[in-house]
């Protein structure tokens, strides 16, 4: 990790608004810095020809106007935010006002950073924000001499304008708002697809304490993380998870705290978790048949899971989701029974395609029981599935309602549960990471039980937050680490491609 002090750029005396042609070469020179290995210059130039839906628009001349004091303040704040968020060594922005001839530069951004990733990403981010927030308008004069002020449909979001919010944006423009926190690598089951029978768990002192977890969560919330999901191993085997929940829900900026569990310990803990403020529960359950359950989990426990689900309902959890892994040759017979159970109980059921992160390293292509096949099985039994309206675009599941209950749900609950969160119909969803990767919409980051940041379940690199925490590191250093992790995120997990490299860790060690 680069520990040189890169967070104090020279106070910029360059004007942010100018009325004459921008000297872009000088702008680029102005961000040169001893610690900068990368310098990026972006210039926005006025177009003479814009391809439209109905016709090609010809522009003869552009005029820019600004609310100058506000524009200077906004651009200055964006510049400072970019420096802080991306760890830039320097940054300069100039926007031109008045008449700008076609082909000339209307806006220029220069950034410098130790590495190119930050320099590019910051310039991209700045352009995006300038276009959304700077009180600057252009007037286009067409070939016929008509002058039109451009006021696009997408209006400035006054919420984000008045409160500049830092964001964790990667080099593909994905905004990260979800943090999965694993609290343990231990589990009270040994599901064949996740954990080998003979497993060695990390010594307790290698795992983050709740205090450390909360500190990281707080830093993450300050960077734009809005929801936290507690996972494991099996989170409930860790002592007093409700206490962790209680602390996480109070973090400013965190809107939702949820938890994924196998349900074995839920009967005892559901009420405590609810009282602590846990918003949502996901329960992993792959089979409703005792034998099938034992074959998959390699332990008994179905009765306890069912008791746990009943307790969760009694404790007041709404929109409980059941996650069922689909494995060819193992779970076909459980699909319909699970669906029947969930329809009866009002749980939203989701089938997840088996992913290559088992402990035995025994995954191969032909083992994927695809979401499509499961859908067909369900449709044959229950009738056609109706695609549900997506309430959350970044959610990886494709949701459906059963045709017969579709109408009932629409009348039922107006869409919100007691906690003010959108409810889901007790329908069925499919998470198909193998056949329908959703990498382009990914908004999640991970913190492993032993304090490593990961930007993907399948990534082969980690960022060591525990080390920063335990060597007296500052919150700023934690923030920078998380940012580095985000900026290194690949386009996609690459399953099925030649480039795919199996990560050294199995699911139970990363956090499901």
């Amino acid at each position, binding site marked *: 990790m680069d520990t040189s002090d890169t967070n104090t750029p020279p106070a910029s005396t360059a004007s942010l608004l100018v009325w004459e042609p921008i000297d872009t070469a000088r702008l680029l020179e102005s961000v040169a810095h001893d610690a900068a290995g990368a310098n990026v210059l972006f210039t926005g130039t006025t177009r003479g020809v814009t391809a439209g839906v109905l016709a090609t628009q010809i522009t003869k001349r552009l005029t820019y106007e600004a609310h100058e004091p506000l*524009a200077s303040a906004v651009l200055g704040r964006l510049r400072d935010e970019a420096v802080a968020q991306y760890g830039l060594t320097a940054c300069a922005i100039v926007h031109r006002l008045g008449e700008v001839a076609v082909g000339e530069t209307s806006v220029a951004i220069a950034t410098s950073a130790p590495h190119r990733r930050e320099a590019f990403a910051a310039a991209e981010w700045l352009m995006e924000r300038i276009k959304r927030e700077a009180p600057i308008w252009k007037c286009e004069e067409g070939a016929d001499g008509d002058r039109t002020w451009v006021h696009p449909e997408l209006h400035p979001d006054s919420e984000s304008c008045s409160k500049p919010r830092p964001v964790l944006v990667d080099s593909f423009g994905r905004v990260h708002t979800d943090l999965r926190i694993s609290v343990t690598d231990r589990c009270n089951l040994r599901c064949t697809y996740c954990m080998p029978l003979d497993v060695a768990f990390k010594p307790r002192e290698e795992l983050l304490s709740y205090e450390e977890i909360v500190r990281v969560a707080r830093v993450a919330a300050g960077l734009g993380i809005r929801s936290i999901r507690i996972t494991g191993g099996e989170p409930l085997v860790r002592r007093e998870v409700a206490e962790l929940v209680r602390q996480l829900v109070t973090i400013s900026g965190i809107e939702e705290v949820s938890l994924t569990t196998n349900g074995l310990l839920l009967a005892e803990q559901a009420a405590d978790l609810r009282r602590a403020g846990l918003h949502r529960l996901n329960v992993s359950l792959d089979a409703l048949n005792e034998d099938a359950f034992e074959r998959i989990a390699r332990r008994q426990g179905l009765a306890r899971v069912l008791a746990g689900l009943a307790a969760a309902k009694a404790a007041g959890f709404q929109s409980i989701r059941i996650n069922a892994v689909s494995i060819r040759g193992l779970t076909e017979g459980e699909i319909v029974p699970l669906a029947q159970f969930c329809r009866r109980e009002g749980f939203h059921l989701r089938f997840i395609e088996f992913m290559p992160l088992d402990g035995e390293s025994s995954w191969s292509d032909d083992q994927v029981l695809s979401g499509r096949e499961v859908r067909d099985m369900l449709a044959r039994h229950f009738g056609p599935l109706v695609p549900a309206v997506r309430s959350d675009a970044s959610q990886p599941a494709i949701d459906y309602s059963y045709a017969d209950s579709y109408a009932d749900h629409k009348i039922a609950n107006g869409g919100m549960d007691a906690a003010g969160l959108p409810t889901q119909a007790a329908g069925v969803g499919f998470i198909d990471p193998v056949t329908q990767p959703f990498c382009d919409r990914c908004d999640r980051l991970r913190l492993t039980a032993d304090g490593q940041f990961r930007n993907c379940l399948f990534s082969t690199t980690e960022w060591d937050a525990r080390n920063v925490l335990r060597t007296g590191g500052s919150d700023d250093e934690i923030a920078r680490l998380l940012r580095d992790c985000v900026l290194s995120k690949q386009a996609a997990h690459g399953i099925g491609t030649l480039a795919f490299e199996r990560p050294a860790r199995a699911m139970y060690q990363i956090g499901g």
Partner: protein
Amino acid sequence: MPAPHSTTPPSAATDTLRISLFAGMADAIGRRSVELAWTGGTAAMLRSRLAAEFPPIAPLLARSAVAIGDRYVTDDSHVLCDADVAIIPPVSGG
């Protein structure tokens, strides 16, 4: 005995608020600023008053943000009589 002085009741403070306009909105009304009698209120109330008293800017107003000084403000923000208010229609810089 002299007649008692008649005392005039104190009038409510009627300050005038000046609001800056820009781009297409200024063009719509032919002016770069407007004035309203203002005794205080929220940004949301200001919007309603502006739309009512200056109909040509109403359509854009619905899609515009309100700024005071060097900050955008939310609709529930209070607008003081001496505030430096500007209406920011959908922007197109960059």
